[in-house]
């Protein structure tokens, strides 16, 4: 598989930070119970911070000594988060208000530092940028989907648009968010498992057919030799 395709699919699906690695749980639970808009907003903020921090850290990976890499990463990430905060407060104040403290807490989001440590300091800038975008997208999609479920069940609306009058208040609380998060992880893992199993079965089938073909070819060769 092309390495860029692999990085992208890993970030979004096979190593999805929310469903597969269960990282960034704190903002996930806080935002999905709030609203789908807040959840998507948080995801996009993480995407921007993650992509930029991955790129900067990758670019500086040969300059930053190993002994001070973590403090340097934290300073870089904190700077980017502060910039994102300033931009949101200036241009998207409603989102800034709805994200509240959790916006500043992106600094300590383990997805951001985790990708810096596990990927960006070992790969090129382009690969790191792609990894940041893929993981950020994976996080954003996971939060948005769970945010939609919680908002729909908790307040009968989606992205603020009223769909029905029926609502279950629990889904606007941390308990409801936990339930939706747990069920989403189970469902996602099941789908990935089914997909990988079917891929394995398909691969085995192809391998078996190839083996049979090669045996048949070998047998035909023997017969020809005998006839000759």
């Amino acid at each position, binding site marked *: 598989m092309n390495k860029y395709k692999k990085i992208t699919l890993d970030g979004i699906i096979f190593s999805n930070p929310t469903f597969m690695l269960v990282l960034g749980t704190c903002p996930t639970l806080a935002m999905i119970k709030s609203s789908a808009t807040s959840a998507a907003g948080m995801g996009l903020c993480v995407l921007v911070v993650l992509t930029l921090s991955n790129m900067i850290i990758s670019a*500086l990976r040969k300059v930053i000594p190993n*002994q001070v890499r973590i403090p340097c990463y934290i*300073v870089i990430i904190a*700077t980017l988060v502060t*910039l994102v905060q300033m931009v949101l*407060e*200036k241009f998207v104040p409603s989102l800034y208000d709805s994200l509240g403290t959790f916006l500043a807490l992106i600094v300590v989001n383990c997805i951001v530092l985790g990708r810096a440590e596990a990927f960006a300091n070992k790969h090129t800038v382009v690969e790191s940028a792609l990894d940041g975008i893929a993981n950020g997208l994976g996080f954003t999609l996971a939060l948005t989907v769970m945010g939609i479920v919680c908002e729909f069940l908790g307040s009968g609306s989606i992205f603020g648009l009223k769909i029905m009058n029926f609502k279950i208040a629990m889904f606007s*609380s941390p308990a409801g968010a936990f339930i939706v998060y747990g069920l989403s992880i189970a469902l996602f893992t099941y789908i990935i498992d089914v997909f990988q199993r079917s891929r394995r079965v398909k691969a085995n089938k192809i391998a078996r057919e190839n083996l049979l073909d090669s045996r048949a070819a070998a047998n035909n060769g023997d017969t020809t030799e005998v006839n000759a």
Partner: protein
Amino acid sequence: MTVKQFFKSTAFKCIAVLLSVLLVSGILLAIAWGFLEVTDEERFNRKIGVMYDGETVTSVEQDLSGKNVSVSGATVQKLWYIEEKQDYLVQAASRGNGGDVICWITIEMQDGQTVGGIGKVIVYAVADAAEYIGNIGADIYQKFSEDYTDGKIFTYGDKASSEFISTGATFSLTAVCNCVNGAVEFVKAYASGAEITDPLEDYEYTSFIDGKKTNWTVSGEEITYTIITEANGQATPFTLTIKVDGTKKITEYSIAVNGSTESYGNQMAQAAKDLTGKSLADVQGYLSNAGGVLNTGATRSNELCYNAAAFALANYDTIINAAKEGN
């Protein structure tokens, strides 16, 4: 290690890189701040825009000095007259679960003097982390303007009320209701030109005491107070009868209207019993001991009852002297 060796060492490289990263980050943030700073005026105009659907309006801040700004469990912090709309914008605060909930309320006027309705209600700020306040949906804020009638007291956060709305944010919703009730009452008085002085401004321990409804009678050396408290979180106003005699101790403490929530209401009789026979020093001790006797589960109700006791005891001399002077 020589100086030359130090400059070639990893330690120096670490310090230099770390300081460089800090310096570059600092400069970058300083430049960004220059372009992206949101001034207080800008913040204020944004909120005004929210209140008037993006319209540009001229707000004239009213002078509230010397006025009684504690109304219906809320404190009116600021009042603006909006010239284009000829209505009032009120900033009022009331205590929620973790801290003050500060609301902005537009009060629509008829012929400049009478309150015609409530325009919009928003939460301007929350002083402490109160994450459940997000559960109060736009439809609930909308209800304030839809349900307003003259003399209406909003009780969406009161579990005992028929109009209670279950949100999971009962404390915050009670605080918002207090802010709206207080804002309407204040503007009514302000716009009609009525005197809005604090009837309790010369007294001590006036927290949670409704100065307009509280009264007392003096008989010899004994004062009989009928104290009406304000609401406090989930606790609705209490009506208390407290007698203080010449020994400056409470001789009788009875609860006529119990504002406590259903589950904690039966605890309040014990509080009344405990306060009987107590002096000001005793009550001050209870009030200063955060997490002590007040924290029984009915904390908000206890705060009201113990503060009322402190009010009755602390002002004994003032009231007796005034009675002797014939006031």
